Each structure stands twice: as C-alpha cells, then as structure tokens.
C-alpha cells in the first residue's frame, strides 16, 4: 500500500515542484529524492516495518513476491532517473509534469504488483498506460512522436476494449471479479463442465495481456511506439512498464492457466515462437538502433513468456532475475543511446575511441541483453530455459529459443562492431563525469549479478 500512496503523493509533489522552481536539474533532484523515499517506503512495507494499512476489501493482495518485484521496478526507475534525468529534462518544457506522469505510472505498476481482482487489474493497467500515451507524445513538435502517441492510444484503447470484453465474460461466468474461479460442480454425468464464457473471457484477457507485454502477434504497436517516443521514455516504457505487465500477466494466469486445458500450452507456444521469431528476425535488418531495441524488447518478451509456460519456482525466480537483468541492461543502454545524436548504427561508429567508458558500458549492456555468460542477462535466460526443462516441457522449444538467442547476438553485436571496429566521428552530447560514474556502476552491477545472481535472488528469500 505504501508504494501506491507514496507514488500518487510524489506525483502530485512533482506537479507542484514545477511551479516552485524553474530549474530543471532541481526538479530531477526532487524526483530522485522522491524515488528514494518511494523505494524506502516500499522496502519498509516489504518487511512490515511501517506500513500504512487500509482495508482494501480484498481488492489488493500484498505478497512478498509482489512487493519485492515492486522494489525492483522502483529501483529500476531510480536508476533510470539517475542516468537519464538530464535527458528527461530535455524532452520538452514540462519536466515536472513528465516526472509526475512517471510517478503516476509507478502508481499503476504498484497496483499491478499487488492487484487481487480484475477490477484493480483494469484500473492498474489504465493508470499505467494513460500517462504513457502522453509521455509518448511528449515531443510535440516531432511528427514521429505524435504519430506514435496516436497509434499507441488507438491500439491501447482497442486492447482495453478487448480486455473489458474478456472481463465481462469472466464476470458472466463467475459472478465476481476475483482471480480465482469457484470450483465447478460435476454434472450428472460426472464430468466437470467447461465454462465456455470463462474460457472465452480468459482467451480475450490473454490476448490483451499479450498486447501489453508486446508478445507477437499482438506486438505491432511496440516497434512504432518505441521508435517514435522520445528515447528516454522508450527506455522507461520498454523496461519498467513491461516488467510490471509481465508480473500482472503471471499473477493473472497463475491460477487460471489450467482452465484452458491443453490449448493453453499450444497458444502459449504459438505466441512464444511467434514472438521470438518476429522479435529476433525483424531486428536483424533494422537500420536504427532504437528501432532494433524495440524489436529486441519483443524478443526478450519471448523469453520472459517462458515463465508463463512453466509456472514453477525456477520460473518465478527467473522472471525476477529477468526483470532485473533486462531493466538494468536496457535502461543502461538507452542511457548511452540518448547521448548519441544519430540513432542509426553508423551513428555509433568509433564510439569506443571517443567515449571509451560509454562504449565499455554499452558492451556490457548489450552482452547482457544477448545473454552472454557472466552478465546478468545470461542467468535470466538460463533460469527461463532451466524452468522449461525442469517442467519436463517440450525440449525442442528450448532449442528453438536458443537458436533465436544466437540470432539475437547478430544485431546486438552489430552495435559493438560499430563502436569498436569501425572508425567514425560520432556526435555525442556532453557527458558529465557523474553520469560516467553512474553508468559504469550500473554496468558493474550487471556483471556482478552475472557472476553471483544470488545477490538478487537471496533478497527475495531474506
């Protein structure tokens, strides 16, 4: 509860900070402080130190897993602001409002990590998405940003419609918005009847959640929106928001996957393969690094979907680790991307010479995204695949995933090639030493998690 309340309050605080001060760096500073407070509040909540408790009438359920996940998201947001705060300031004239919207999004993610019922799921998702429509269109003069915003809005609303239809059907079958389905009574023939409405509802919910986490074939908004949105906000959207979406997806179907019977695995396999295929293959031919990252985020989603495929302990730990690894690497790499003016691959040519620190960090992030061992990304993928194998699922899907992982190396390493092996004179925005320190620390963190993933996972059990 702390996180929801504090993030809402902090959002309001940010709104007013824009009135009080004109200095943008001060606003960023306030945001950082606010995020620290938010994080502290959430951690305090996790260990029950001082938590505000309100009778939620069972609409919210605060599990340790959820709270921990929320801490991760808030930490990621903190790192995001630390690294890219200056870039947020540069998007437009409304830095304070952008931060306010970011906090409202965090409010939405906090709800999504603790929802217990379809109503809160719906509200959480809406609270999370509506500010994003605005953030996407924040660069008002930029037609791409406009377009992305409009596309995102139309498609997002459409998927909301689909989701609501799913909720309505589920409600029709269950008579409540609870996540769990009352046990069906066997009919006279002794067969437990399949509730068709329920199944229809959950299929539609599945679809709309797939849309939110940009799983193919419901991913189409992702490349365009991520590409069009201001780069900083793309970093935010593709990491924190997406991870929260995954968490909600996971919780939503934890109890209900069995309802769909064998078709659940078939659909999921279809989605996973399609996601991996489209994400990885399409990324190969991209000319813009930013757009490539959009596709790569689709590909990463394909891997995260394995957690849904299996639903065992490893998968749970895995999605946690995946969220950490993916968020850190993506935020880190976007922080580098923001500094480079030309977002095409050629824009990176010779970066290693011009900015060795930046280039090194970028390499670490890209390797983590590609899942090279001794980076966090490796263990993320490792857990996912291990979960599948442990569940005794089809082994071939693991092999397919690995083949795509190998393909992913292709486009990630293209950036490394540009930075290290090609000569050029990249246009770079000024890089402060504080920023350098921060980004190196983040990259070292990525490596540290890659060497000892238990530093993330043990907290979970602590």
């Amino acid at each position, binding site marked *: 509860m702390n996180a*929801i309340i504090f993030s*809402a309050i902090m*959002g*309001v605080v940010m*709104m007013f900070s824009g009135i009080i001060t004109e200095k943008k760096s001060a606003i960023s500073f306030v945001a950082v402080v606010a995020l620290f407070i938010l994080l502290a509040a959430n951690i305090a909540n996790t260990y029950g130190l001082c938590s505000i408790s*309100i009778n*939620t*009438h069972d*609409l*919210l359920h605060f599990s340790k897993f959820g709270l921990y996940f929320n801490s991760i998201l808030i930490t990621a947001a903190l790192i995001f602001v630390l690294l890219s705060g200056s870039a947020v300031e540069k998007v*437009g*004239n*409304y830095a304070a*409002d*952008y931060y*306010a*919207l970011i906090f*409202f999004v965090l*409010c939405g993610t906090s*709800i999504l990590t603790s929802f217990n019922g379809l*109503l*809160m799921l719906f*509200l959480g998702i*809406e*609270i999370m998405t*509506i*500010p994003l*429509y*605005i953030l996407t*269109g*924040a660069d*008002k*003069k930029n037609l791409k940003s406009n377009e992305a915003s409009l596309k995102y809005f139309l498609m997002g609303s459409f998927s909301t419609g689909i989701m609501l239809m799913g909720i309505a059907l589920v409600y029709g*079958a269950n008579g409540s918005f609870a996540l769990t389905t009352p046990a069906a009574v066997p009919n006279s023939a002794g067969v437990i*009847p399949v*509730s*068709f*409405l329920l*199944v*229809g509802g959950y299929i539609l919910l599945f679809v709309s959640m797939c849309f939110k986490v940009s799983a193919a074939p419901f991913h189409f908004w992702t490349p365009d929106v991520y590409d069009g949105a201001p780069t900083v906000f793309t970093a935010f959207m593709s990491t924190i928001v997406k991870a929260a979406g995954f968490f909600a997806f996971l919780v939503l179907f934890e109890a209900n996957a069995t309802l769909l019977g064998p078709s659940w695995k078939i659909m999921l396999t279809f989605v996973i393969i399609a996601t991996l295929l489209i994400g990885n293959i399409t990324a190969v031919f991209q000319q813009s690094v930013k757009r490539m990252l959009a596709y790569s985020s689709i590909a990463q989603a394909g891997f995260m979907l394995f957690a849904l495929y299996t639903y065992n302990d490893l998968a749970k730990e895995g999605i946690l680790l995946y969220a950490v690894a993916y968020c850190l690497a993506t935020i880190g790499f976007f922080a580098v991307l923001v500094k480079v003016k030309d977002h095409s691959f050629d824009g990176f040519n010779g970066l290693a010479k011009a900015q060795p620190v930046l280039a090194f960090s970028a390499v670490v992030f890209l390797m983590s995204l590609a899942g090279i061992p001794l980076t966090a990304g490796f263990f993320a993928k490792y857990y996912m695949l291990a979960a599948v194998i442990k569940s005794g699922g089809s082994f071939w899907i693991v092999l397919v995933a690995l083949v795509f992982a190998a393909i992913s190396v292709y486009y990630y390493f293209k950036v490394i090639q540009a930075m290290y092996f090609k000569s050029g004179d990249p246009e770079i925005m000024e890089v402060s030493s504080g920023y350098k320190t921060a980004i190196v620390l983040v990259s070292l963190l990525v490596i540290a998690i890659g060497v000892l993933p238990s530093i993330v996972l043990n907290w979970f059990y602590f």
Partner: protein
Amino acid sequence: MNTVQILFFFLSVLAIFSAVMVLFSKSPVHSVLWLIAVFFAISGHYILLNAQFLAIVNLIVYAGAIMVLFLFVIMLMNLNANAEPKKYWWMKFAGVISGGCFLVVLVSLVQQATELTGKQALVKEGNIGLIKNLGKVLFSDFVLPFEISSVLFLSAMVGAVVIGKKD
C-alpha cells in the same frame, strides 16, 4: 411476446441500426449523432434492466459530455466535408470479414455454453441499480478503486495540459 420483449427488441434493433449507421455515415458529425442514438438505446436497456443510475450516468457522461467533446473537436477541425477515397476497399473488406469471424466465433462459443441455458437476466426487478444501493457499496467496499481513479484523472489532466498547451 410481452412488452418487455418488444421493448428489448426495439431497443436492440435501434442500437444496432444506429451503430451500423455510425460506420456508414460519411460525415463525422452524423456519426456522432448516430452514436448518441446508440447511447440512448443502451440507456433504454439499462432502464429495462432497472439500472437507473447507470442509465443516467450513461446519458450524462457519454451522450452529454463525451459526445459533445467529440462534436466540438470535429467542428474545430472542420472535418465535415472529409470524404474517404475508396482506395482501401480491400482493407475494409478484410476488416468486415475478420470482424464477422470474430462475431461468429464468439456467438458459436456462447451457443455451446450449456451452462447458460435457461438463465435469465432479471428485468425490471431488483434494486441494486438504484443510486442509493450502489453508492453504499461504492463508498464502502469500493472506496479504494474510487480513490485510485482520482490518480487516473489527475494523470489525464496533467496529460491534457502537457499535450494541449501550446508552446
């Protein structure tokens, strides 16, 4: 066929006809008007189901506020004469086909749903739709989402300001 059924079918036909007309109207203004007709029909349904509060809210919020907003925007843009060229006919065709498929699939799903046979929606009776009863539940059990939706409005407000303000 009793009155209720007649009313039901009348409202349904009206709603569907109006909805189709929303699609077929060349002029956006006409579309808005047809959509308002749909809302009215749906409000009629609400009343039929004795959900008076929602019927009123629907009229006030949707037909009253939202649609007026739409109209304003349309008029602001002066989109009256905007005729769509027929160039993308295949897209329309595919859209209709796939929408139809969607409908067919879901209808066949409901047809198979044996658990629904014989079930009736309570018409005219039941008082849960009254303002008093709804308000009681809203401000006790559902106070949390009610409060949280303020965040939603807040963000929408901020958003509208950020987007709408001229730099």
